[in-house]
């Protein structure tokens, strides 16, 4: 029987400092992953936590980690060449095949961009697979902006309509205001068929979804991704359970029509 709790060590290839508080770790890995999935990352003595895949390439995956907890603090001390312990990938991905041939709206806040970034890159590299992509990426302020290079790339892609926005301040190339303030710019009523992916803090996802509905989107076209505490990610430890639903098994990506009926 496979030991689902046993991690394997993977070598860190490089560390990229995105902001003061967010680093991207590129780690040796050549298995399959799907857009929106996550791994259980750990370092001995510090512990384990679920982290979304923020990037993927030949022979590696990337994780963008915010320095907030004990584990993430520990990971920040690691250098290229060090080992990171991994289990996964876990979780239901975004149903990207269903997104193809339609319009796609991606709304993300802060590190919420990490779980949708491989999908954004995919469509940026294969623009023929979608009609259009509306990206609204919100950050707290200019010092918190992540993935600057890729954002530039998205802005150059003709199929993409990219809006980057700062919560309360202004900067060249950025709008001002919460992501919700820019949702009315999305022409939902002109779309023949579309999907919306929203990832960010719970409050942001809640209001962004409501704003989309107000602007003509329908519930079952909206997808959200949950961040939860997990000690196993395989349906055992109980931490991520909401009602009868285990976020690790049935999520983290949920259709909004289901997500709105999960009561914490």
């Amino acid at each position, binding site marked *: *029987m496979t030991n689902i709790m*046993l991690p*394997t060590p993977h070598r860190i290839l490089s560390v990229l400092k995105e902001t003061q508080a967010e680093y991207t770790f590129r780690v040796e890995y050549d298995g399959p992953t799907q857009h929106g999935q996550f791994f259980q990352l*750990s370092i001995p003595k510090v512990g384990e936590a679920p982290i979304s895949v923020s990037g993927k390439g030949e022979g590696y995956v990337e994780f963008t980690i915010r320095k907030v907890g004990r584990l993430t603090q520990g990971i920040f001390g690691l250098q290229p060449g060090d080992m990171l312990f991994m289990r996964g990938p876990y979780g239901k991905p975004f149903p990207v095949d269903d997104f193809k041939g339609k319009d796609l709206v991606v709304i993300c806040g802060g590190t919420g961009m990490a779980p949708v970034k491989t999908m954004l890159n995919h469509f940026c590299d294969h623009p023929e697979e979608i009609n259009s992509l509306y990206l609204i990426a919100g950050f707290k302020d200019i010092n918190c902006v992540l993935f600057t290079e890729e954002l530039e790339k998205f802005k150059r892609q003709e199929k993409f309509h990219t809006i980057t926005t700062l919560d309360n301040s202004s900067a060249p190339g950025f709008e001002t205001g919460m992501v919700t303030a820019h949702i009315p710019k999305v022409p939902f009523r002109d779309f023949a068929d579309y999907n919306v992916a929203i990832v960010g803090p719970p409050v942001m996802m809640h209001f962004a979804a409501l704003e989309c509905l107000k602007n003509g989107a329908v519930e079952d076209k909206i997808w959200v991704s949950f*961040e939860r505490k997990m000690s*196993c990610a395989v349906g*055992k430890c109980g931490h991520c359970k909401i*009602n*009868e639903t285990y976020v690790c098994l049935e999520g983290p990506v949920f259709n909004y029509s289901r997500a709105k009926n999960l*009561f914490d």
Partner: protein
Amino acid sequence: MMITKSELQPRADLYRLLSRLYRVEVDQPLLDALKELRFPQAENETLAEGYAMLRGYLDSCGPEALDDLAVDYATVFLAAGSADGAAAIPCESVYTSPKKLFMQEAWEDVVRIYREKNLARETDHSDLMEDHLALELEYMSLLVHQRAPQDEKYFLENHLLNWVPQLVADIDRYARVDFYKAVGRITLGFLQMEEQLLAALTDGTLRQAPSYSVRAERMDKILAQLKERYRVFAPKRIPKRGPKGTDLIRYGEIDRLSDIVYKEKSHFSAKEVFYPISQTMFYFTGESASQKELEDERDIILIARPCDINAIRRLDNIFLHNGQSDLYYSRMREKLHIFMLECRESFDNCFCVSVGTNVCDDYSVAIRIDDICALAEIRDEDFLPYFEDEVPIEFMPEFVTQNRRNARLPKIRDRQQLGEICKLEYWNQFDEKCIACGGCNTVCPTCSCFDTVDIIYDETSRDGERRRVWSSCMLRDFTQTAGGALARKTQGANMRFKVLHKVYDYNLRFGGSEHMCVGCGRCIDRCPEGIDYLDTVNGLTDALAAAEKEGN
């Protein structure tokens, strides 16, 4: 032939499932549950055909299935759209009375039988006749639970088999989609199998499991022999290790019969035997991780009461059937041999009868203990050699049939009502009252949640081990993510989460007729703040009823 494992639970479950199918139309949760169901191999041809037909329907039905089934239900069982009322009216009296009328002789006899058993229709079902197939099947499930084969045989021969064959033929005639045709076949095939099984049971073809009377000192010898191949665990006394210098009773390895504490409820449940409070999963260095192997390869005999035994099935669902199987649990679970400790009297705060966990049939040996001897019923042949030299007796273990306290579980209709329950002010009372100690989870036989903890051997190295340790959904940081955010922010919310898991969520997820809580009442015994879980559950049921009343 010897009964090593009983089929009690699946039989009762199938009766209940069929009862549900005849009672009202199929709804979405039921359809979803049916799609997930794995049908067993059946020897009976009608039953096998029914299963195959149902599988075929469920695999191919589209989004309009619920509507189709509702229409078919109305056509077949309610004579909807039929000018002359031709249908398969699922009431015995209609089939057995000369003029095909309701409430004739058969109905009278059924009413009499229910009354003798002290049974009455629930108010939700007062529109159904007592001899409606749904009620007759439910009655059979009850008899299975009560282990009353003579009564089952009587009811099967004198009622169900008198009319169900014709009813099933009619269902076949009036049903348009395969679903109800399949359900009809399953019902008929199952009842035919039941007839055979009950004939064997009551004729004595299946002989009663051999039973022995064993004097205490002889039992100690048997335990010594067993311990060569097994580790034997039972509730035992640990002096002065409980709160305020009291004795603690928890599961541990025993050497002699007198080690077993059988007159008191153990403070901890039996789960720690196969799911330890803390266990090392693997050792690590900075560069590698290696799985911890078992230190003792011997099998385990677990001497436990029915509530704790019934709890194992619930833990199995989490560790073995919720996603992939867990190796650490599974390798211990496979070693378990259950000796059921007969439990005929109720302790304080027990409410097993009202949640159906007072009985249990899944054991290798049942034992009744008193100060001078033990009576043992041997169901598993592997254990016969240990007892063969003892004095044969007639012994059937008994179960507690009445507790001083009872649970009244809430009936939650749908998602919308669940949402309303989550918003009830009712939960706020626990914000202050509960001190988040997690004691209730620790003593619970069905709580399964854990944390992982890394231990290093010295400060400067990366060598150490990762353990998993019981966790508790009542701890304030149970849902806390790295940034410090909490999914559930108050003790009221945590209490709601725990209670609904025990009496709603688990059942919704895993189906069947069981809820997670097994009614041992240990959480009530344990709470330092006097929070009474049973009052909390019953209070929720009342709060729900009050909210409903207000709404109307």
